[in-house]
């Protein structure tokens, strides 16, 4: 399996001279199975340069797995050029949204409205199909199996375990470790704490031991207390998840849009220094980074 990072920025694109080395595009990851099956994790703005790389290989068959429907994970979809070319086949997978009561097809129908985009959904030329996933139920794409796992974010969110011929990666999407909503000593604290611990254990079992854990590490330890409940992790929580699940490598992503390259390297180095015993290789995601499992 091969992995290539096309977008590593969180929340909003951050182009400019301060982000040249790590990149300003929002989340998009290309995964190639051993049989060259194309799996795309999230459709942030990073999917646009990925689409450019696919033009010479058309017709293509692509399976896009959306972790959740916040803008920075879907806004590249209308610009995924293969959907505008006949002969291509694109399947878009994602979670059912229980608040809007719609399946994953809403990611396209919401964006391709007259006020927001010049092309209507009916005018798309490729064959586009939508697959609303069930948590824990794997989908086979050629030699690759993709299993959705419910995560913790302010909207329904699936992380994905991707496996091929004995190699595995897990992508958390945006994820904040569960916290107790009650303070110690408050009524309900112990009951809630037991549920949080059970949930964490279920997640770690679902992730399993992977060769690569791509994980939301938006904040530093100092920043996190002011961002509690926003749905993101920190370098510390990312490294801890890697250690507890026995991941071989941890790839920290979803970089803060305000953080320039120099600062990103600085805070990452500090995080590594604080966690010398992670037991795994911890890396910083950057656009263009390729990893072979």
């Amino acid at each position, binding site marked *: 399996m091969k992995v290539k990072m096309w977008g590593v920025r969180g929340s909003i694109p951050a182009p400019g001279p301060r982000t040249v080395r790590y990149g300003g595009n929002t989340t998009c990851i290309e995964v190639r199975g051993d049989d060259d099956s194309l799996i795309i994790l999230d459709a942030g703005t990073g999917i646009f340069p990925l689409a450019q790389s696919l033009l010479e290989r058309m017709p293509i068959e692509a399976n896009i797995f959306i972790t959740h429907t916040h803008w920075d994970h879907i806004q590249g979809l209308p610009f995924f050029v293969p959907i505008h070319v006949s002969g291509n086949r694109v399947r878009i997978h994602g979670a*059912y949204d229980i608040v809007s009561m719609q399946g994953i097809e809403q990611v396209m129908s919401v964006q391709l409205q007259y006020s927001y985009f010049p092309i209507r959904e009916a005018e798309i030329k490729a064959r586009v199909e939508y697959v609303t996933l*069930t948590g824990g139920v794997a989908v086979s794409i050629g030699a690759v199996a993709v299993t959705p796992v*419910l995560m913790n974010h302010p909207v329904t969110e699936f992380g994905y375990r991707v496996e091929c011929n004995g190699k595995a990666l897990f992508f958390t999407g945006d994820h904040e470790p569960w916290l107790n909503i*009650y303070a110690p000593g408050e009524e*309900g604290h112990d*009951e*809630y704490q037991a549920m949080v611990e059970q949930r964490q254990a279920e997640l770690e079992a679902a992730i399993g031991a992977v060769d690569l854990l791509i994980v939301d590490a938006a904040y530093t330890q100092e920043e996190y207390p002011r961002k509690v409940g926003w749905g993101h992790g920190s370098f510390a929580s990312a490294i801890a998840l890697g250690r507890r699940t026995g991941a071989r490598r941890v790839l920290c992503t979803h970089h803060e849009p305000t953080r320039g390259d120099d600062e990103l390297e600085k805070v990452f180095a500090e995080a590594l220094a604080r966690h010398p015993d992670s037991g795994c290789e911890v890396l910083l995601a950057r656009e263009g980074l390729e990893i072979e499992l």
Partner: protein
Amino acid sequence: MAQLSPELERRLTAAVDRMPAFPKSVQTILEMTRSANCLPKNLVGVIEKDPVMTLKILRVVNSAYYGLPNKIGSVGQSVVYLGINTIKNLALSFAAVGILPRFGTAGFDVQRYLLHSLTVGSVARLLSEKYARAEADPADCYVAGLLHDFGKVVFAQFMSAEFVLALSIAAQTQKALHVAETEVIGVDHACVGALLARKWQFGESLVDCIRDHHALDLEPTPMLDCLRMADAICRKHAFGDSGNPWREEEPAHLPLRFGGMEAVVAALGDLSKHVEDARAFAQIGAEG
């Protein structure tokens, strides 16, 4: 378990979709959510007091979409799985349906029903902590108490003519309401509540409690023991009114684990805080 006709099942399910929540929770949720910083524990504290909101949330979270490893039985647990923002937005969508009127066309007092449900839930939780620790989960017992009679609200809201008749037969003949319901409607509130709970994939223990809370001849589970005892205590003390004009004496089959009614009431101590909390939420004063 008895079966509902497909037509009746369709009618009742659609009815629950349209069922408004209780005034206090709707008002409080609308107020709380004006601030983006509303505390999750405060939101949970309101939602879990409203039987309509609770059952709608359990229905959504137990739906097949998320493939959760276990059945979700409480609002707090729903927050752990779906996140507070999703639960908040669900609660807002339920609040937008409107407010349950105190007296619908059946003349059934839903606020006294709410007081009864809340106190049964609270007492069932206390009983499980005191008498069935390690056998029954306190949060599950609370939800069983809160939802055990929700079939009555379904009847009152959407089969009001039949329910009025059942209430009147029960009052005139001193029959238990569930017996009169079966005579008039063909099923009682326990059966309808359980059928809907099963359809919505609630946990088996909750479905069983709702179904069997009047079936005194069945061998009870620890959770059902706590629910029945709580129901008996609340009836004896007239905490709220479940619409049942028939007042049983101390049930013949009080679960053995509790000893007698007096001993249990003494062991539970002062219940006034729980009752006052429930009154405040149900918006019923002490005279109500």
